[in-house]
């Protein structure tokens, strides 16, 4: 009864929500749902731009020999693809989901800092216009890899200052977004929503936000020093002036490894929401999941040098970084065990969000295992800078992070728009994506083990067959994503109306206590303790 009166009260509020209309609603947006929507649309746009660049890479690599592009442009494509996918697609997609879901999940009316929220979103289109604009300046776009290692990056032409400014802006956007998330979760939770009652998506985002606040400024510091080396005569990373290029690598990877967890921890959160829902069981080991996430975040600060074993470092350092890397398998194993245990004897159904979560479980684990292989120092000496590394991190990021984002969208989309999507088409999207992602990336393990180096536009003829297979997988995966957009657009425009607040039978959490579609202003009155207790899935 309380739930219904609460829902009715919210529907009433929605009727009188006084939301702005026209372009002002978006440009001056302060509503967490509007800003979340803008983040998600932006991320989707960047996903297709970055994906188009990946298609060009796979097109060039379809056959040995130089086919379409000169090596400089090819290297620009690998660099830009990475920067756009990491900073433009995956991170904004997570921020979009955080904006939509965190206030709804913690019983808050909005994010704590709505104007800052607007600012952190609107930085991004300028940052990426600047970055993509480098394609049209003399000397072309940055081509030294997304890691921006000096001295190579200092040889960029006119694109260098544009790259540095764009990275600064992306960093500022991420830091502001992260501060907003932490401040919202720490201060805006409804009374009774204790930390250990929070849904796992909110928990993983809280930990991710701490990581962001700690490491994005480190990246900013590193690129600021690159800037002063290039324009102001400093020699932080220039050996000729007494500087040390390897120090850049240490600083970069102090940011870069936690960044990997910034990209994947919210995925753990989403999978922890989806699997209990479609298993119709509470999450197994909720607290262990929280502590495992915190452990992974802590360990991510002390493993950075495993990205640079071959640069030359003392044996003790190699051993330390190898063993600390191995340690990450323990909390990650806890998570995989708990997801499996949640499904054990559950009443499972396989709607699209569950399919994506299951694919995540299997395929992310493959990426995790190849990560363990790369973490072994003597093995890494063989794998360093081969396609095996490319296969590893794409397994982590595509069927890992991106599948979780898609699973999350399929999970919450009916709640957002009040319409159900076409299940059959969504399942087609899942199966095509899953088959093609494996056709695309699995052969790259073989290529890497056989010695094919990464970041090259041409290769020896013995690598031809698997490269052709990989390219076919790439084109198939890219085209399959058009179906994703079609499913969403069709759902928004003409999907079947969803009448119930709890869209999925087994769903738990405060967001499902709100009416569907979610009202413009979520919890204008804090939810009662009984609703919070009912929503807690553990």
């Amino acid at each position, binding site marked *: 009864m309380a739930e219904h009166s609460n829902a009715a009260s919210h529907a009433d509020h929605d009727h009188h929500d006084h939301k702005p209309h026209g372009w002002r609603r978006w440009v001056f947006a302060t509503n967490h749902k509007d800003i979340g929507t803008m983040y998600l649309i932006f991320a989707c746009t960047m996903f297709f731009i970055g994906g188009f660049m990946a298609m060009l890479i796979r097109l060039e690599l379809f056959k040995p020999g130089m086919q379409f592009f000169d090596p400089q442009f090819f290297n620009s494509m690998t660099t830009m693809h990475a920067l756009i996918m990491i900073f433009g697609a995956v991170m904004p997609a997570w921020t979009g989901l955080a904006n939509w879901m965190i206030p709804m999940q913690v019983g808050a009316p909005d994010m704590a*800092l709505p104007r800052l929220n607007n600012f952190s979103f609107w930085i991004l289109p300028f940052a990426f216009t600047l970055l993509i604009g480098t394609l049209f300046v003399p000397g072309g776009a940055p081509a030294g890899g997304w890691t921006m290692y000096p001295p190579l990056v200092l040889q960029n032409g006119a694109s260098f200052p544009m790259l540095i400014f764009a990275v600064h802006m992306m960093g500022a956007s991420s830091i502001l977004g992260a501060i907003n998330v932490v401040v919202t979760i720490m*201060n*805006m939770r409804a009374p009774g929503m204790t930390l250990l009652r929070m849904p796992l998506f909110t928990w993983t985002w809280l930990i991710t936000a701490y990581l962001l*606040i700690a*490491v994005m*400024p*480190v990246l900013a510091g590193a690129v600021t020093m690159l800037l002063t080396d290039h324009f102001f005569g400093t020699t932080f990373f220039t050996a000729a002036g007494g500087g040390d290029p390897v120090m850049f690598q240490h*600083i970069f990877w102090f940011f870069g490894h936690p960044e990997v967890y910034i990209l994947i921890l919210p995925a753990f959160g989403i999978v922890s929401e989806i699997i209990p829902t479609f298993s119709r069981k509470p999450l197994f080991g909720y607290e262990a999941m929280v502590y495992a996430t915190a452990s992974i975040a802590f360990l991510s600060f002390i493993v950075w040098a495993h990205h640079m074993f071959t640069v030359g470092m003392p044996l003790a350092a190699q051993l330390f970084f190898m063993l600390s890397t191995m340690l990450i398998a323990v909390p990650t194993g806890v998570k995989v065990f708990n997801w499996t245990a949640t499904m054990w004897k559950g009443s499972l159904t396989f709607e699209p969000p569950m399919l994506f979560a299951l694919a995540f479980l299997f395929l992310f684990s493959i990426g995790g295992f190849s990560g363990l292989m790369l973490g072994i120092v003597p093995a890494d000496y063989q794998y360093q800078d081969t396609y095996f590394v490319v296969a590893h991190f794409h397994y982590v990021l595509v069927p890992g992070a991106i599948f979780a984002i898609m699973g999350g969208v399929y999970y919450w989309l009916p709640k957002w728009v009040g319409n159900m999507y076409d299940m059959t088409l969504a399942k087609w999207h899942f199966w095509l994506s899953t088959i093609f992602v494996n056709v695309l990336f699995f052969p790259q393990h073989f290529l890497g083990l056989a010695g094919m180096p990464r970041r090259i536009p041409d290769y020896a003829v013995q690598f031809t067959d698997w490269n052709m297979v990989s390219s076919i997988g790439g084109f198939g995966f890219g085209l399959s994503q058009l179906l994703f957009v079609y499913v969403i657009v069709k759902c928004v425009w003409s999907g079947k109306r969803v009448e119930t607040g709890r869209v999925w039978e087994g769903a738990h959490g405060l967001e499902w206590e709100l009416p569907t579609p979610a009202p413009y202003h979520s919890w204008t009155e804090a939810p009662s303790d009984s609703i919070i207790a009912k929503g807690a899935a553990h």
Partner: protein
Amino acid sequence: MDEQRRKAVRRSTLVFSLIALAFYLGFIVMAVVKGGR
């Protein structure tokens, strides 16, 4: 938002902004110190 919560929001925003700033400047200072050795 009540005044007490508003104050808490302001305080934690300031604290986390300062932490971010400390990481930014800290790593630059560390690089300067290392370069000076």
